[in-house]
C-alpha cells in the first residue's frame, strides 16, 4: 500500500486535465443515454419502468443531501415524498392553478414543514434521528388514512393529469420521463455545488466527527438543518411529480417505510459519498424491484430479496459500488488529488492495523477509540499515514 505513493508522482500534472476530459465525456454519454432511452424503449411498459426508475433516482439523490453529506440516515423520507404528492394533488384538485406551480408550492410547503421536524429530530444524534424519521412515516400514515374527508383515506385520491386527454399513455410516459430527468439534473447540480462549497465541507466534517467539527467552529446545527430542508424539498418535488404522473395516491404506498428504505438502499449501494451513487443504485435496485414484482407477483418474496440485498450492502459494501470501483482504478499508477476524502471509519481501521503491526494491542471495537487523539500526534505515525493515503 505505501509503495504506490513513490511511483505515482510523475503523472501529477497530466492527471487533472485528463480526468476532467474523461468526466465530461462520461457526463455527455450519461446524458445521451438518459435522453435517448424513451426512443429506444420497445414498448410503453418498459417506458413506464423507466419513469419509475427515474423517480427513484430523483428520490434517492434527494435523500443523499442529508444522508450523504451529514451521515444522518433517514429511513422515513417517504414522509416528504408522500406529503409532496398529497400537497400537489390537493392543490390541483381544490384550486385551479397550474399543476406545475402546484408542484412547486407543494415542495415549498414541505420544506417549510421540514423546519420544525428537523429542529426536533436533529437535536439528537444517530439513533434517535432514525427513530423520529420512522415515527414520522407511521404517524403520517395514521393521519392520512383516518382523515378521509380531505385525503380520501384508504380509498385513495385520484389526481387529475396535467396533460389533456388527447395525450396518449406512451406520450405521457415519455414526457414525464424527460421531466423527471430534468428534476434529477437540477438535484444533481445542487448536490455537486454543495459538494464543492465550504458549506459542503462543513457538512462532511459533521459526517465524520460531529464533535470535532463543532470544536472547529462549524455551525453544526444550522448546517444540518439546511441540508435536511433542502433534502425534504427535493424529495417532495419527486413525490409530487410521481403523483402527477401516476394519477393516484394511496396512503399505504405513499407513507411506507419501504419507500424510505429503497432510497437508503439505492444510495448506499451506489455510494453515498459520490454524486452519481444514488442514480446508479436507483437503476440497479429499481430494475431488481420491478423484476421481483414481475417474477414473484403478489407474494412477499420481494421483501426477502430487498432485506437480503440491504444486509449484504451494509455488511460487505457500506461505501458502495462507485467508491469501490474508483479505489480499484486508483490502484493503477496515477496521482490522486493531494487531499483525499477519508472517512473516520477508514482512519480508525488504518490506525488499528498499524497498532497491530507495531505490537501494541489493537484498538478495541468501540466508536470512541476511533477518535483517539494520541494516535494523531505520534510523530512516527505521521509519515506512514501520509504514505497510506496517497
Amino acid at each position, binding site marked *: 500500500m505505501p509503495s504506490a505513493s513513490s511511483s505515482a508522482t510523475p503523472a501529477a500534472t497530466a492527471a487533472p486535465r485528463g480526468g476532467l476530459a474523461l468526466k465530461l465525456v462520461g457526463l455527455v454519454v450519461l446524458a445521451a443515454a438518459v435522453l435517448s432511452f424513451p426512443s429506444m424503449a420497445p414498448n410503453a411498459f418498459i417506458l413506464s419502468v423507466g419513469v419509475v426508475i427515474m423517480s427513484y433516482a430523483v428520490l434517492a439523490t434527494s435523500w443523499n443531501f442529508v444522508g450523504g453529506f451529514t451521515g444522518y440516515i433517514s429511513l422515513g423520507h417517504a414522509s416528504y415524498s408522500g406529503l409532496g404528492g398529497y400537497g400537489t394533488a390537493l392543490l390541483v384538485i381544490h384550486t385551479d392553478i397550474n399543476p406545475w406551480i402546484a408542484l412547486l408550492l407543494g415542495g415549498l410547503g414541505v420544506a417549510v414543514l421540514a423546519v420544525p421536524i428537523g429542529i*426536533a429530530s436533529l437535536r439528537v444524534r444517530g439513533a*434517535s434521528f432514525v427513530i423520529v424519521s420512522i415515527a414520522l412515516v*407511521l404517524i403520517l400514515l395514521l393521519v392520512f388514512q*383516518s382523515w378521509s374527508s380531505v385525503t380520501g383515506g384508504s380509498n385513495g385520491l385520484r389526481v387529475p393529469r396535467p396533460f389533456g386527454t388527447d395525450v396518449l399513455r406512451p406520450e405521457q410516459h415519455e414526457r414525464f420521463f424527460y421531466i423527471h430527468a430534468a428534476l434529477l439534473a437540477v438535484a444533481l447540480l445542487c448536490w455537486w455545488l454543495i459538494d464543492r462549497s465550504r458549506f459542503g465541507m462543513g457538512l462532511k466534517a459533521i459526517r465524520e466527527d460531529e464533535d470535532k467539527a463543532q470544536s472547529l467552529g462549524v455551525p453544526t446545527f444550522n448546517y444540518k438543518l439546511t441540508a435536511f430542508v433542502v433534502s425534504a424539498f427535493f424529495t417532495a418535488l419527486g413525490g409530487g411529480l410521481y403523483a402527477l404522473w401516476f394519477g393516484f395516491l394511496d396512503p399505504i404506498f405513499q407513507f411506507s417505510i419501504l419507500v424510505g428504505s429503497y432510497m437508503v438502499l439505492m444510495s448506499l449501494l451506489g455510494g453515498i459519498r459520490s454524486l452519481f451513487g444514488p442514480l446508479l443504485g436507483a437503476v440497479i435496485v429499481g430494475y431488481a424491484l420491478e423484476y421481483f414484482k414481475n417474477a414473484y407477483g403478489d407474494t412477499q*418474496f*420481494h421483501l*426477502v430479496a*430487498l432485506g437480503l440485498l440491504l*444486509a449484504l450492502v451494509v455488511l460487505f459494501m457500506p461505501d458502495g459500488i462507485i467508491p469501490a470501483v474508483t479505489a480499484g482504478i486508483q490502484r493503477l499508477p496515477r496521482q490522486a488529488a493531494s487531499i483525499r476524502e477519508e472517512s473516520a471509519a477508514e482512519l480508525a481501521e488504518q490506525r488499528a492495523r498499524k497498532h497491530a503491526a507495531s505490537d501494541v494491542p489493537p484498538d478495541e471495537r468501540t466508536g470512541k477509540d476511533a477518535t483517539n487523539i494520541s494516535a494523531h500526534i505520534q510523530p512516527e505515525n505521521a509519515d506512514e499515514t501520509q504514505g497510506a493515503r496517497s
Partner: protein
Amino acid sequence: MSLVFQSLVLGVLLGGLYALLAAGLTLYFGVMRVVMIAHSAFLILAAYLAWFFNRETGIDPLVSLLFTVPIFFVLGVTMQRTLLSRLRPATLTMMSVLLTFSVALVIEGMLGFVFSGTQRRIRLPYGGDSLELFGANIPVVKLIAFGMAAVSLLALYLILKKTPFGQALRATIQHPEAARLIGINTERIAGYGFGLGLATAAIGGTALSLDSTIYPSLHWHWIGPLMAIIVVGGLGSVPGAAIAALVLGLGQSLLQIPMGTTWAQTIFYVALFATLMVRPQGFFGGRLAQRF
C-alpha cells in the same frame, strides 16, 4: 365512570406488555448501542410460532414458550456474534439500524411467504372469558399476558441485579472499557445481553398471540410505539423504559374513549416529539442517551 376504570385497568395491562418489550430494546441499546428495528418483527415471529404450535398440536400456545425462549436466546447471541459485531465501530449506530431493518424485512417477507398474508388468530377455550372486577370487565387473556410480562420483568430485574452475569452486563452497559479492564469479556456479555433481549420478544410475542389477530406486517404497528417509549424513557435506561411504557400505555387506553383507537395511537408520537423538544435525552436517561 366504570368505563374510565375499565380503560385504566386495560391500560395498565397493555403497559405491562409494552414495558417488557421496551426493556428488551433497552438491553440491546445498552450493550451494543444498537437500535434494534427487528425487535417487533421477532415479536410477530414468536406470535406466529405460538399460533403454528397451537394449530399443529392443539396444546395451549403458552407451552410453545418452552421452545421459543431458548431458540430466540440462541438466535440473539448468533445475530450479535455473526452480524452486528462485524460492523465498523465508527458507523455502528447507523449501520446497525439498517442491518436490523433488513432482518425485519426478511422476517416479514418469510412470514408472508410461508404462512401467507392471511390474518390469523388462536382460538382458545378461555379466549372469551373475562373477570368481573369492581365493575370492570377484564379479559382473562389480557391478565395472562400481563402476568407473563410482569414475571419476565421481575426475572430480568433479578438477573440484572443479583447474578454475577447481571453485574457484568450492567458494567458493560455503564462503561465498556472499564468493564474490559477488570476482566469482563464484554463481547461475550454483549452477545448474551442480545439473547436476553430477544428472549423478551419471544415471551411478548406469545402473550400477544393470545388475544390479538396477527399478520406479517403487524410489526410496523408495534415498532413505532416501542421506539417512542425508549426515547421518552431515555435510551439505555430500563426503569425509564418501564415507566414510560406504563404511562403511555395508560394514556393510549384512556384516550381511546374520546378519540377512538386510531387517533389514540398518536399519543406515542406526540410524546416522542414533545420529549425531543423539551428533553432530548429522555426523562430518565443519563449522560449516555444524549450522545446518541
